[in-house]
């Protein structure tokens, strides 16, 4: 684990050989390496700043552990801080006080919302929970057809009113349908939108008001760079998210967006998408993500 960061820190620590303790002056180069590693992993620039400051504080306050060299100790401090920020343990999907449970998917264009909607439905279905998927994306060409195709693949019904209806009405009626049929979980797929598109953000807020969701999941592409921070901030401030799904983790991106999402919203990442197929959804584990971000 952390081979690359450890390797890079090697040179830094060579100079410190014989110095048993982490100090303000001998730690600066090491902090610089951490900063570089996080920037290369696409952690937001501002988030890197506050993270590195926290690591510095922790490192300076750290007790010297006999038998452990300062390099190992320092790397452990960085790793522990990453895990801590990312939430320590897996956060499961929220339950509803009274069924149906409502999950609202949101995010930028192409992030993976529609695919994640089907993946989550299949995931829940395997736990013997019945699902209804609601197609409110009336904008993207063939978006409804995409959800219907996925629904057929996994044998989960899709509620849709075509492209002529209003997304708020579709969501409301979809929820009614689920209530009538005694369905356990309703997952609402929405159109992709930019966080600066006021009209589309207002529409999403209306959908939210109409269905009063138990979960609002921000779907974020794990290859996203600095923008993950802005997207999270706006969606959280304007809509209020309760968690996130990080998609396309089967790629080789380092996924620094995870740290930005968590730091800025304070909300947990709940699932990761690990493939194009409907089975490719896994719970999110903070320790694995910390390794991924640091391991180069």
């Amino acid at each position, binding site marked *: 684990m952390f081979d690359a960061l450890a390797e890079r820190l090697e040179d830094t620590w060579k100079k410190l050989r014989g110095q048993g303790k982490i100090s303000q002056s001998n730690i600066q180069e090491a902090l610089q390496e951490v900063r570089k590693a996080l920037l290369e992993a696409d952690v937001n620039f501002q988030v890197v700043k506050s993270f590195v400051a926290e690591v510095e504080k922790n490192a300076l306050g750290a007790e010297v552990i006999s038998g452990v060299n300062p390099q190992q100790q320092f790397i452990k401090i960085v790793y522990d801080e990453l895990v801590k920020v990312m939430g320590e343990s897996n956060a499961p999907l929220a339950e509803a006080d009274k069924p149906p449970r409502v999950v609202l998917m949101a995010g930028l*264009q192409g*992030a993976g919302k529609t695919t994640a909607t089907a993946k989550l439905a299949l995931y829940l279905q395997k736990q013997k929970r019945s699902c209804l998927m609601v197609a409110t994306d009336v904008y993207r*060409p063939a978006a409804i057809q995409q959800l*219907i195709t996925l629904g057929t693949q996994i044998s989960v019904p899709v509620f849709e009113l075509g492209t002529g209806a209003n997304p708020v009405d579709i969501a409301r009626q979809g929820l009614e349908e689920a209530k009538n049929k005694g369905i356990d979980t309703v997952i609402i797929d929405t159109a992709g939108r930019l*966080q600066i598109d006021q009209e589309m953000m207002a529409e999403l807020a209306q959908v939210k008001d109409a269905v009063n969701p138990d979960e609002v999941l921000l779907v974020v592409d794990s290859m996203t760079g600095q923008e993950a921070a802005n997207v999270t901030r706006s969606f959280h401030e304007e809509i209020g998210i309760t968690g996130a799904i990080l998609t396309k983790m*089967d*790629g*080789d991106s380092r996924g620094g967006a995870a740290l930005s999402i968590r730091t800025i919203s304070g909300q947990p990442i709940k699932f990761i998408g690990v493939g194009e197929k409907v089975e490719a959804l896994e719970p999110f584990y903070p320790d694995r993500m910390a390794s991924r971000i640091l391991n180069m």
Partner: protein
Amino acid sequence: IGQGPLNQNAIEQIEAMLYSADVGYEATEYIVNTLQNKLKEESIASEDAIASLKEILQQVLDEPLQKLTKTEFEPEAGKLNIWLLTGVNGVGKTTTIGKLAHLAKTSGYNCVIAAADTFRAAAVEQVKVWGERTNTPVIANEGKNTDPAAVVFDGINAAIARNADILLVDTAGRLQNKKNLMEELAKIRRIIDKKAVDANIESLLVLDATLGQNGLKQAQVFSEAAQLTGVVLTKLDGTAKGGVALGVSRDLGLPIRFIGAGEGIEDLRPFSSYEFVEALLS
């Protein structure tokens, strides 16, 4: 970072601008060093550093064009032009195909689209909507999991039969670390080379402006499989700056040809390094 007229404070400000635009650590280091040298050599006051910075950034983006005999991006007359669009999942390939079909149509060219994403749910339906919007024939094979190379083959035949000027090829999104999918793409490219020997081929990688440093790896691996000749940078209507394009331009010498700035049919513009750099630093 390198010695030069800029003080620590100024360097940090410039770094902050570049990092937050996804230029990345290495490219930022290169740019700041180049800037320091330029200021020193040309005795430019550090107050004028931003103007010099803009020059350097534009140079990086314009450099790939220097090697070309023809710098404009346009179909060659009297020939079949094949424009192959590739990239990772969800970046905007299909939408760009629609926009390009519209642009080609309104410029008087005869177009055919090959719907070679035979994998994603409703991918063919999506591209067909764009075909209807632009009144462009779409060659598709409705069968499940059909070979995309076969669709491309049919597309080339149809384009030749219709005497089309341009064949637009939409491909499935694929992550560059998937060996089998990259091999499938290489096969598509081989079919094009073999079947359309006289065609003028543009192989365009679609990059999403929200992408971080993974965009560099994408460009490297897609370059090999699809023999890229250029880049389309999408979703610049958001606040993401698309700074990874600088690294792609520098590392791979690929010119950026178009930018996508919206989901509408007209939201495609030729790339301007001047406008891009102004937006990047704003």
